[in-house]
């Protein structure tokens, strides 16, 4: 494992954190979610200098917000299924983070800026890094090699994104010139 990927190491310049085995919580589906979240955070950092940066940043920000919701739902189902005693407190931390992300999205939509996008990327990277290592690891002994965890983790899928109408409708009939 390279220094660059060492969990917990965010000293100095904003070193990127990416998923490594040290982040594994013992549930493959949740590990896969964490990989995606780190990847999206990396994309958020790259978006500022991207071609058509505003479109990229807006789309990555929306994806991060959507995927945070999706991942938290999965994790909460797993914690409940395995009888994790600190599930309630853990879910409360999720709720606080959801609100924070919603707030970032609202501020960005009001006044898009690369600075705000970078601020969110840094905040989320720190949050995710510490949340996995300090909080998620506490349910690992309950969830690892536990069939109930595996069943619960697989119980959420594409339907999560289908359950309500999207609100970003566009098309010739729907968006006048």
């Amino acid at each position, binding site marked *: 494992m390279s220094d660059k990927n060492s969990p917990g190491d965010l000293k100095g310049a904003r070193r990127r954190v990416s998923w490594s085995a040290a982040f594994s919580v013992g549930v493959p589906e949740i590990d*896969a*979610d964490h990989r*995606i979240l780190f*990847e*999206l955070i990396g*994309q958020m950092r*790259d*978006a500022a200098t*991207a*071609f*058509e940066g*505003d*479109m*990229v*940043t*807006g*789309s*990555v*920000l*929306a*994806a991060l917000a*959507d*995927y945070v919701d*999706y991942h938290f739902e999965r994790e909460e189902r797993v914690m409940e299924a395995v009888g994790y005693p600190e599930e309630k407190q853990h879910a409360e931390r999720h709720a606080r983070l959801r609100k924070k992300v919603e707030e970032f999205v609202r501020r960005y939509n009001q006044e898009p800026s690369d600075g705000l996008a970078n601020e969110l990327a840094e905040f989320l990277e720190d949050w995710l890094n510490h949340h996995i290592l300090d909080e998620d690891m506490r349910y690992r002994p309950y969830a690892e090699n536990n069939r109930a965890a595996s069943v619960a983790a697989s119980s959420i*899928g*594409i339907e999560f*994104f*289908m359950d*309500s*109408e*999207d*609100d*970003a*409708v*566009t*098309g*010739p009939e729907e*968006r*006048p*010139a």
Partner: protein
Amino acid sequence: MIWEDLRVLVVDDNANIRRLIATILQGVNVKSVREAANGHTALEILRSFPIDLVLLDYVMEGMDGPAVTRAVRGEIDRDGRRVPVIVVTGYSEVARLNVAKEAGVNDFIAKPFTTKTLLQRIARALSQDMTLKEMETLALQRQRQLRVGS
């Protein structure tokens, strides 16, 4: 629809958008996502590999989105099976979108897009373009799943 088996082609000259769409699809277990940075490469891929759905940028150097779509309808579609094409664009003027529609595009997604929009539009385009044979296969799969679950 079994998303794990879906074979998607993402065509966009913006590498960040291609990477984002691939990540979103990976996040919902889509295993096969190919990428092309222009229309010519997209058509080469479509000629060489089975693709279930194309997500296509509108404005690109060389062949634009409608030109790629016309080539798909003329050359790639076979035996009554239309490859669903969704245009993902930052340009949503009606005139431009009508050109794409006339070229045979199934649907549109505006950039910036949400994950929910992207996935819902994909689901809709796939269900619209299912052939009778595919619907039969899906119905049989569902019957089998019900039997296993009961």
